[in-house]
């Protein structure tokens, strides 16, 4: 039995990543591909100190969060991704390389992302940034 069969949440996460890649490659616009991987009640939590901090709810909230994020960062690359599935939750461990849109400053930081899946859709997403102060420093004008 493959890991994917043992951990069905992994298949959901891969569909989400594919949809996200396609959305970003096309420059945004059609959000339906990503929406198809999200539960209507999905919530993304961001630390309050960030410019896009707070809770973003539902498909429209998720789309608004992606736009708010894109206003801050002009490039974003995720490397060294490792996935840790356990039942309906997956934690991904990676390293992010980003450039702040307004300042042009580059920043990189380790990232953990917590995904909870319900009925093959993502219901909760919570990123843990290694150091939010580092992000704020890069974004600060």
């Amino acid at each position, binding site marked *: 039995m493959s890991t994917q069969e043992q951990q069905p949440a992994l298949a959901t996460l891969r569909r989400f990543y594919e949809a996200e890649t396609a959305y970003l490659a096309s420059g945004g616009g059609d959000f339906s591909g990503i929406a198809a991987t999200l539960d209507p009640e999905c919530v993304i939590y961001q630390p309050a*100190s960030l410019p896009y901090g707070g809770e973003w709810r539902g498909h429209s909230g998720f789309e608004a969060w992606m736009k708010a994020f894109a206003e801050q960062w002009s490039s974003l690359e995720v490397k060294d991704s490792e996935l840790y599935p356990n039942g309906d*939750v997956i*934690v991904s*461990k990676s390293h992010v390389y980003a450039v702040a849109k307004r300042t042009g400053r580059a920043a990189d930081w380790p990232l*953990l992302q*917590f995904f909870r899946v319900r009925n093959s859709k993502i219901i909760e997403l919570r990123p*843990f940034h*290694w*150091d939010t*102060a580092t992000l704020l420093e890069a974004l600060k004008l």
Partner: protein
Amino acid sequence: MSVQSSANEATPKAVLLRFYEAEANYMKAFEENGIASFNEMRETMAPDVVLHQSPDLPYGGDYLGYEGYEQWAVRMSSIFDKLEVAEREFFEQGEKVIVVCRFITRSRINGSVQDFPMAQVVTMRNGKIVEFRPFYWNVPAYVAAATR
């Protein structure tokens, strides 16, 4: 109990649970007697253990070895008079285990309470912890906790 002899076969989660138990015993002894032995915790960690704390935390930086770990524990207790971990979820793979939890602290300096999610990557080698890397939800909140 053959805790030490079984260390090499223990899963990362089992080692981490033993560490947590030792840590709780350490804190209880410290609270009751004002002094505690570090030995039980030491048994779960390799001599070259490293604890990475986000650089902008009031106790940011890398803490090396048993001595470093103890130094960090002293710094933490100088800032917080309450430390509680709740709702732990474990994610295990190879020699790593990731813990996601709620971390509740109270500042000794200004009485503020921090109640945030936290995640931590713990890496093992031969049944001993070699690296801790905690991810705090919101570093500025901990900076404020250490400010009078």
